[in-house]
């Protein structure tokens, strides 16, 4: 990375100062147990706050409002995590997947239409998974039939999408649908931009294990999408999706690792330093101390792994399984760590019924955090799938016959 160290130190100081001035005081307490509207309002306001500082989309090209180097982004995310700033939850798909898709495979027209929109708060959702296409994404069944009758040119879409996170608040959807049923599995899929206000579209929230409903089902019944909303060539949607899936270049995992290493570890240490009913601090028990030190170590390892991943992305030397290694390690460390927090918090952890919105997966409400940790070991290819990727693509082991 080409940014001189001195400039990075300056950026670090700037961001740190900005955080002191702008991170809402006590937002965790204020955001605990809020409803959907309040969450959306808070997220949108925080996004605009970051945007004003130039911190909302640092990874975008300068011409669209970004322009930070990878090294600078690392500093930014480290400082946001250190300051325990709210996370950008709602805009996540918009600024990462949607933007990456538009920037790498979209038309100029599509870019001009949506990138400024995203900066103004346009919310996107990812419509990839289906009931029968989870880990085996390529087996998706939603159809997109091209229809040029009556002078128009549209894709008529039918099917069902699952696990569409935040669909209830979304303006636009990144949609994968099968446009050539006769083609091999991965060769007949098209990538479409779908307006969430289109007729024929029905969004139903799915209640998750925590009782929240940010995941949704999307039912598509003769939904018409103008052909101009096709991204990349027709039937090449799988390739577009693959090319843009890792567009965040490791930065998301780096941010999550930093959050685990800041507020996460601090909360856990605090939990263990709090005297119990008998006046003893758990941390004075060597059993607890040993586990804490183990987590401190694992987090340090995770952070090193994430920095390395970002640097490899930047240097163009990223390996085909590097992201899987990080995902497996992060998600299982998160699960172990929150699980340990739940054990230490004991009966008290059962009586904590809500955790703050806009936080990460380490709110310090340990049992809720623990349950929430399966949001990392399952989606995006379960850890079982990730291990197969690591074995085959990372180590070159033979595929199953």
């Amino acid at each position: 990375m080409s940014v001189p160290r001195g400039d990075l130190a300056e950026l670090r100081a700037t961001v740190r100062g900005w955080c002191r001035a702008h991170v809402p005081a006590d937002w965790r307490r204020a955001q605990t147990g809020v409803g959907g509207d309040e969450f959306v309002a808070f997220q949108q306001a925080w996004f605009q706050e970051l945007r004003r500082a130039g911190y909302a989309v640092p990874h975008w090209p300068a011409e669209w409002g970004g322009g930070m180097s990878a090294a600078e982004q690392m500093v930014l995310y480290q400082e946001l995590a250190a300051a325990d700033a709210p996370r950008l939850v709602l805009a996540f798909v918009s600024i990462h997947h949607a933007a990456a898709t538009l920037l790498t495979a979209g038309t100029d027209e599509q870019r001009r239409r949506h990138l400024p929109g995203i900066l103004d708060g346009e919310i996107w959702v990812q419509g990839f998974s289906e009931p029968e296409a989870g880990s085996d994404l390529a087996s998706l069944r939603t159809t997109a039939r091209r229809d040029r009758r009556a002078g128009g040119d549209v894709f008529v879409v039918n099917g069902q999408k699952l696990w569409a996170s935040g669909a209830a608040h979304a303006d636009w959807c990144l949609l994968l649908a099968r446009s050539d049923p006769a083609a091999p599995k991965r060769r007949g899929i098209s990538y479409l931009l779908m307006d969430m206000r289109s007729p024929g579209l029905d969004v139903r929230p799915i209640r998750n294990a925590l009782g929240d409903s940010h995941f949704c089902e999307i039912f598509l019944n003769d939904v018409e999408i103008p052909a101009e909303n096709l991204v990349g060539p027709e039937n090449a949607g799988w390739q577009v999706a693959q090319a843009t899936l890792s567009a965040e270049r490791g930065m998301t995992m780096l941010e999550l690792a930093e959050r685990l290493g800041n507020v996460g570890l601090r909360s856990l240490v605090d939990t263990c330093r709090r005297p119990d009913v008998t006046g003893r601090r758990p941390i004075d028990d060597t059993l607890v101390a040993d586990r804490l030190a183990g987590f401190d170590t694992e987090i340090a390892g995770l952070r090193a792994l994430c920095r390395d991943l970002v640097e490899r992305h930047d240097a163009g030397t990223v390996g085909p399984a590097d992201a899987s290694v990080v995902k497996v390690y992060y998600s299982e460390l998160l699960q172990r760590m929150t699980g340990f927090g739940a054990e230490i918090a004991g009966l008290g952890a059962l009586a904590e019924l809500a955790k703050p919105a806009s936080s990460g997966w380490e709110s310090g409400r340990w049992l809720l955090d623990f349950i929430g940790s399966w949001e990392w070991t399952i989606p995006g290819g379960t850890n079982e799938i990730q291990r197969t990727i690591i074995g085959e693509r990372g180590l070159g082991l033979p595929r199953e016959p």
Partner: protein
Amino acid sequence: MRAELRAVARDLLATAAGKDGGDDAQVDWALLAEAGWLGLEVPDGLDGAGVTVAETAVVCEELGRAAARAPYLGTTVLGAGALLALETTDGRDELLRALATGAPRLAVALPTGDAPLGAAGVPGTVPFRLAGSGAAARLTGRAEFVPDAAEAETLLLLALDEGGEPVVVRAVPGQPGLEVTATPVLDVSRSVGAVAAVGAPVEAGSVWRFRGDGRAGGRLLLARGALAVACDSLGAAEAMLAATVGYASVRHQFGRPIGSFQAVKHGCADMLVSVSVGRGLVTEATRALAAASSAHAAGGAGGIEEAAVIAVEVAVSRAKSYMCAAAVDVAGKAMQLHGGIGYTWESGVHRYLKRAALSRALFGSPAAHRARLARRLDADAAGRAR
């Protein structure tokens, strides 16, 4: 008898609670009373079934399997358990008879966390204190996470009398000086609450003594609680294993049932191994407690030998620490192997994970039970060396 009880219980709970029984899978209390499950250990002479804690354990396991909501822990496991350990009095007998035939809900206010497993142990951690005696007797103290406290019609409070001897005090929610508060918990299939007494007057004839040593009585009562949640966790883990095997056999990805992949298959194998080990430990603990309880009952005023109490505590600590930790792991693995579906509210996997988490913390964490076991290992080794 036990196999038949298990079959009947499983059927009944599957019908009564089921998956469409709403979020809290409340079991019809009258149905449990009719089935005769409430007075299993109540003697024939008091209209009970006169069997042992081994049968109660079966019901606990089946309640866990169904993740059912029922105040069984408060009424039968702890309520009947406490009453059966007491000296015979009219009030005690009357309550036992009612419990076996009718359905009064009980709760026993005792320490449900790690404290009584510490080196000090019972009675240092008895939550209530009696001051004065007879009509002037007043009760003060506080117990938290008391099973089924908020719905109980009669409360039994574990207290120390003025002589420092553990006794059981009967009280009624709403009586002066006594406050019962529900504590909402993530496991909505369970009910716990806080019981607080501040100089509460004690009704005449409501202070009951344990047969024999009150300390031993209190320790066995805590062991009953720990064993009951271990049984619950065993049932819950078995349910999660069965659900996962079922799902993995029908769910297809990559053109195959996911259960044909070694990652899933071996995960299920590990679940079976730990459930099998846990079942063995729970069985041993149940046997030890049944033997000690019989000895306690037979011994009359003489009470029970220290060695027998220790044998129960060792077996229960093993079963509780292993099975309650294993159930959380098994439910977590079930969530993982169910994939996205397992993370939905509707799948119900989360109910088991939360229930297992509460069971793990209730009546002593695995670490606290293991600490007690380790003290015993050290003492035994010292005994050998001598």
